[in-house]
């Protein structure tokens, strides 16, 4: 079943609220990762991995902690606003679904042959869709595991889902690693295709919703 959304509704590819939330999130992620690395250094999970002072936020342990428990409010509140916006406006449904398995293999094949088509900013390929959904899942899990790390006694029911305290730390750490991995790809491609970076600043081309057929009109 295919329906068409209300016509003559034109807007930018990235509406202003979305752009604001994107850049607030960028700052929050920067604070959380830098300060998280500082906290990690005081009791490393991997014996060989110690983050150099040059890339951590906070001079001493308490400063890393202060930044982390400051940044968490920005990350969580902004993240809730972003997810609410994406779901209620239908943006996630339009941009990230459906995911075609055939397209996924085709895109991976192209990428391996260095055919990185990124000409149409208004359409995400299957790999992009999976990466964006994946990083959102990592973002949600890092908050849940963070909550369990912060309050393993008050939220002992939540903490026990993970197993013991050290397991929660490992989950939190792996979510961070996934987000850092995403950022490496995300930032490289944004620099590789500068107009995608520009679009997140000025909003990008005008698009109209009616060009996008909806596969599921039932709410």
């Amino acid at each position, binding site marked *: 079943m295919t329906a068409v959304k209300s016509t003559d509704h034109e807007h930018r590819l990235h509406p202003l609220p979305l752009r604001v939330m994107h850049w607030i999130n960028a700052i929050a992620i920067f604070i959380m990762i830098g300060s998280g690395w500082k*906290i*990690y250094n*005081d*009791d490393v*999970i*991997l*014996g060989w991995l110690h983050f150099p002072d040059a890339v951590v*936020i*906070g*001079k*001493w*342990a*308490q*400063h890393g*902690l*202060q*930044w982390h*428990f*400051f940044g968490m*409010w920005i990350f969580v509140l902004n993240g809730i606003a972003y997810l609410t916006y994406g779901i209620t406006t239908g943006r996630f449904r339009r941009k990230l679904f459906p995911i075609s398995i055939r397209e996924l293999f085709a895109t991976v094949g192209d990428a391996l042959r260095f055919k990185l088509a990124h000409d149409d900013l208004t359409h995400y390929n299957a790999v992009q869709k999976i990466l964006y959904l994946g990083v959102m899942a990592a973002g949600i899990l890092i908050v849940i595991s963070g909550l369990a790390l*912060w*309050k*393993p*006694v*008050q939220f*002992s029911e939540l903490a*026990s889902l993970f197993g013991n*305290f*050290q397991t929660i*730390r*490992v989950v939190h750490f792996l979510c961070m690693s996934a987000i850092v991995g995403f950022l490496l790809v995300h930032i490289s491609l944004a620099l590789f295709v500068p107009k995608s970076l520009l679009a997140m600043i000025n909003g990008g081309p005008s698009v109209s919703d009616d060009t996008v057929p909806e596969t599921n009109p039932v709410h």
Partner: protein
Amino acid sequence: MLRTPTPSIFRPRKSVDQRVLSQKRSLVHDINRRNVLRGAISLGALSLLTGCDVTEDDSVQKVLRTVSAWNDRVQATLFRRNHLAPTYSASQVFKPARFNAYYDIEDVKPIDGATWKLELAGLVKNKQPWTAQQIYALPEQEIIIKHICVEGWDYIGQWSGPNLRDFLQRVGADLTAKYVYFICNDDYTESIDMATALHPQTILATKYAGDHLADPFGYPMRLRTSTKLGYKNAKWIKAIEVTNDFRETFWSKQGFNWFAGI
């Protein structure tokens, strides 16, 4: 806080044999002193070069500490008064306990239990000091709980001693006061909110794994509560004050979160 080997799935279970430390104590001391000196010189050079660290900047510290104080209030709201922390079996207890303080284990100044007295101050009716023998004569409560350090490591410990709520009632403390403040033999200070002081798993520990506390772990008496990070559990307590006045503590003065609830 001292770095201690951590139980991790990526690391061997058994910790390093500590005997070699005492055998080579003078050598270890020498190395530490040299490193501290070198660190001080390079840190000084760095701050000369960069001017300042953004975190150390007064205005940044003001913002971060305001948020930390806000987080204290959030944590007090989240605190569940009668919710018990997970407990463990005696076979899971880590022996001996892990040492941690802002100085090395060999710098611990042992307390003479025969002359030690616990002083009481503030909103307490009966301020008669207590001897160790009098404390030992009180009913004992045992808790086997996790000690979680702000650094991220943890271990299971078996602690026993009088319940703090019972003790406060016994000495006629004002249980509606806001804070219980601990003054320690080593210039350490800590304070906890009254709700935590009255929690069923908050005790004045005098024993670990059934034996009197060893000197490095707070002999003759320390605080153990299941709902706070390690550093809130004051060791070598020499005075307890019940008060409505908030005062910064050893670590909170340096920027660590005061409530430090888990």
